[in-house]
C-alpha cells in the first residue's frame, strides 16, 4: 500500500472497492449470492461489504441459483441495480435459462423498453487442481449467446474500473474473474495482477482491448490469467530476439476487432492463447476475424491456437498441467511459428 499514489490492491480488493463505491453512490445497488456476506465471497470479491453496508444490501442466498439469479433480473427490471454472484462459472448449468433466455433476451424482446442493469459476477479458471466441475472459463460460451456484455479483467486496475462501468450499465454484464489472479492469501497467483489502483472512482470503458506489450514479429491475443502467462512467454522470447505483441482483450462483448486487426496487419502472424475450450469458441472467433480480413492482412504463417483441447479438466496435477496451456506452451508454439 503505502503512498496513495502508488497504492497497490489485489484484484479481489479492487473489485470489492468498485462495488463499495457504487453502493455508496447509488442506493439501488445491492449484492447477493452464496457466501457473499459473512464470508465475503469465496474468492474475496465482496470482502468487507457486509460490515459496511449491512445485511439488507449484502445478502447471502440459499443454493438456489435459478431463484436468486432470476430474482436479480426481476429486481433490475424494477430499477434496482443488483450485483449477483454465481460462485463458480462451472455451475451455470443449474441457472442458464434465467441467464440467457431472460436476463440476456428480455431487453431485445421488449423492443428496448425494459432495462436490466444487472452485473453477474463469477469465478473462472483452473491451475489449482479443482478438476472438471470447478476449473472452467466458459466466457466464450456466454459471449456466443447474444445479449450479455462479457468482461474479463486481467488485473486490479482494470477490474475496479470495469466493475464500476458494469454497475452503471443498463444492460446485463457478466463479469469473470480468474481465481489465479485475485491475489488470494490461499492460492498462488500471478503477481502482475496486483496493481496500482486509484482510490477515487473511475471507469474503464468496454470494447477497448489493450496492447499490454508492443512487438513486431507476432500478435498474441489473450485475456484474463493467460495475459500473465503470455507476458512471461513474451519476455523469454524477447531474449531470443522474437518480438511479441500481446493484446489483452479485456471484454469479449463488445469485442475490439480493430486492435486485433491493426496488430496482425503489422506483425503478419497470429497466435491466440486461451484457457477456455478450444473448439467452437473464443479462439476460433479471433482467428475468423482475421481470416475475414485477408484482403488487408498478409499472414506469413498459419495461425495457431492454444486452449484446452476439448477435454474436461482433469484433476491429477500432471494431467491438468498438460490440459491447460502454460507459458512454455506459448513459448514453444511461437518459436515454431517463427521457424
Amino acid at each position: 500500500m503505502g503512498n496513495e499514489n502508488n497504492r497497490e490492491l489485489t484484484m479481489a480488493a479492487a473489485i470489492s472497492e468498485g462495488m463499495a463505491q457504487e453502493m455508496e453512490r447509488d442506493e439501488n445497488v445491492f449484492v447477493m449470492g452464496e457466501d457473499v456476506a459473512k464470508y465475503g465471497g469465496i474468492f474475496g470479491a465482496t470482502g468487507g461489504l457486509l460490515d459496511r453496508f449491512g445485511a439488507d444490501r449484502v445478502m447471502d442466498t440459499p443454493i438456489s441459483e435459478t431463484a436468486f439469479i432470476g430474482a436479480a433480473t426481476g429486481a433490475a427490471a424494477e430499477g434496482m441495480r443488483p450485483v449477483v454472484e454465481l460462485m463458480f462459472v462451472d455451475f451455470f448449468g443449474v441457472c442458464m435459462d434465467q441467464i440467457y433466455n431472460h436476463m440476456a433476451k428480455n431487453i431485445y424482446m421488449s423492443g428496448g423498453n425494459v432495462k436490466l442493469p444487472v452485473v453477474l459476477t463469477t469465478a473462472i479458471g483452473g491451475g489449482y487442481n479443482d478438476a472438471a466441475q470447478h476449473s472452467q472459463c466458459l466466457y466464450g460460451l456466454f459471449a456466443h449467446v447474444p445479449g450479455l456484455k462479457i468482461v474479463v479483467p486481467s488485473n486490479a486496475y482494470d477490474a475496479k474500473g470495469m466493475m464500476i462501468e458494469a454497475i452503471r450499465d443498463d444492460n446485463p454484464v457478466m463479469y469473470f474473474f480468474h481465481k489465479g489472479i485475485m491475489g488470494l492469501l490461499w492460492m498462488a497467483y500471478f503477481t502482475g495482477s496486483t496493481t496500482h489502483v486509484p482510490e477515487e472512482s473511475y471507469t474503464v470503458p468496454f470494447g477497448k482491448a489493450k496492447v499490454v506489450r508492443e512487438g513486431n514479429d507476432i500478435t498474441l491475443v489473450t485475456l484474463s490469467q493467460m495475459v500473465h502467462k503470455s507476458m512471461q512467454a513474451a519476455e523469454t522470447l524477447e531474449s531470443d530476439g522474437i518480438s511479441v505483441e500481446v493484446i489483452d482483450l479485456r471484454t469479449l462483448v463488445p469485442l475490439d476487432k480493430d486492435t486485433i486487426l491493426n496488430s496482425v496487419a503489422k506483425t503478419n502472424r497470429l497466435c491466440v492463447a486461451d484457457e477456455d475450450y478450444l473448439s467452437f469458441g473464443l479462439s476460433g472467433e479471433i482467428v475468423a476475424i482475421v481470416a475475414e480480413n485477408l484482403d488487408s492482412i498478409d499472414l506469413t504463417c498459419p495461425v495457431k491456437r492454444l486452449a484446452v483441447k476439448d477435454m474436461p479438466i482433469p484433476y491429477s496435477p500432471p494431467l491438468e498441467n498438460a490440459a491447460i496451456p502454460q507459458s512454455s506452451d506459448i513459448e514453444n508454439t511461437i518459436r515454431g511459428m517463427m521457424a
Partner: protein
Amino acid sequence: MIEPTTDKMLWMYEQMLIIREFEETMVNIYLEGKLPPEIQEGLAFDIGSGPVPGEMHLAAGQEPVAVGTCAHLKKDDTITGTHRPHHFAIAKGVSINALAAEIFGKVTGLGRGKGGHMHLFDVENKFGCSGIIGAGMPQACGAALAAKKKGKDWVTVTFFGEGAANQGSFHESLNLAALWNLPVIFICEDNSYAISVTKDESTAIANNADRAAGYGMPGVSVDNNDALEVFSVVGEAVSRARAGEGPSLIECKTDRYLGHFQGDAEAYRPEGEVEKLRENDPIDLLRDHLVASDAMSDDNEKEIKDRASATVKAAYEFARASDYPDTSEVAQHVFV
C-alpha cells in the same frame, strides 16, 4: 369470503368478455393464410404463414384466474405471466391495442414486434411473461424484493401452470420468497393438462396448494373456476403481502377450452370433454350472479357486451393497420 363491489364485479365481467372475445377471435385470425396451405402440397396447415405465425396459446376458459386476481392489483403491482399470457395482460391493464399489434409482429406492438405472443413486456403496467415454463417465478421474487427494498407496498403476482409446478424454479422460488418474506403471490393455473400430459401423469399429489406447507406459507385451492372465489382467495393473499406478511401459494382449478396451441389435434382429450366444461362457463356464472343480485340490467349487459366487442375489434384493426418494423430494427435493442 371477500366480496367485490358491484363496480369491481362489473369490471370483472367486462374483462372476461374482452378476454374471451380476444381469444376466440384469434382462433380464426390465426388460421388466415395457413389454410389451405398454399405454401406446400400435402401440408394440412402451415404454422409459419399468415398474419399471426408461430405458436399460439389461448386462454379461453381460464379468465377467472386472471380477472379474480387482477381485480386486486394496482398499476404498481407486478405480474409475471406464462406462455399463455393474453388473459393476464388484458386484466392487468396492458394496452390491448399494443398487445394485438405485438401478436401481429407490428412496430406498434409492446415490443415493436420483436417479442411476439409469448414475450410481452409492458414497463408502465409492470407486466412481463416468458415462453419458458416456470421462468416467471424467480423474476417475480426479484420484483417483490425490489418493492421491499424500496419500502413500497407493491405486490407481485406470478402465474404458472400445474405443469410448471414440477419445474425446479417453483421450489427454489417458493423457498426464497418465504425465507425472505417477500410480497409475492404464486398462482398456479391448474387446467389439468401440460400439452398432452395430464396432471395425474405429471404430479405426485392431487393439490399443488399442499406444497405450500413445505415452505411454511399458506396454500389454498380454488376448485370451481369461479371468478368470485378467486377474487376472495387472492384478496386475502394480496392483503397479507401488502401488510408485509409474506408470500402465498394459490391453486386455481380452471379449464382450457382450446388446444394447447392452435393446430393441436387434441387426440389426448377424451371425446366430449370440452363440451362438458363449457356447460359450466365462468362468464355465464358471473353474469347470472350479476343478474340475480340485480347488479346488472339487460341494458347494462348489452352495453358491456357491445363495449367489449368494440374493444377487441378495435385492437385487431389497430394491429392490422399498423406497419411492420423496418428490417433495420433487427440489430437494435440487443442492448439499450
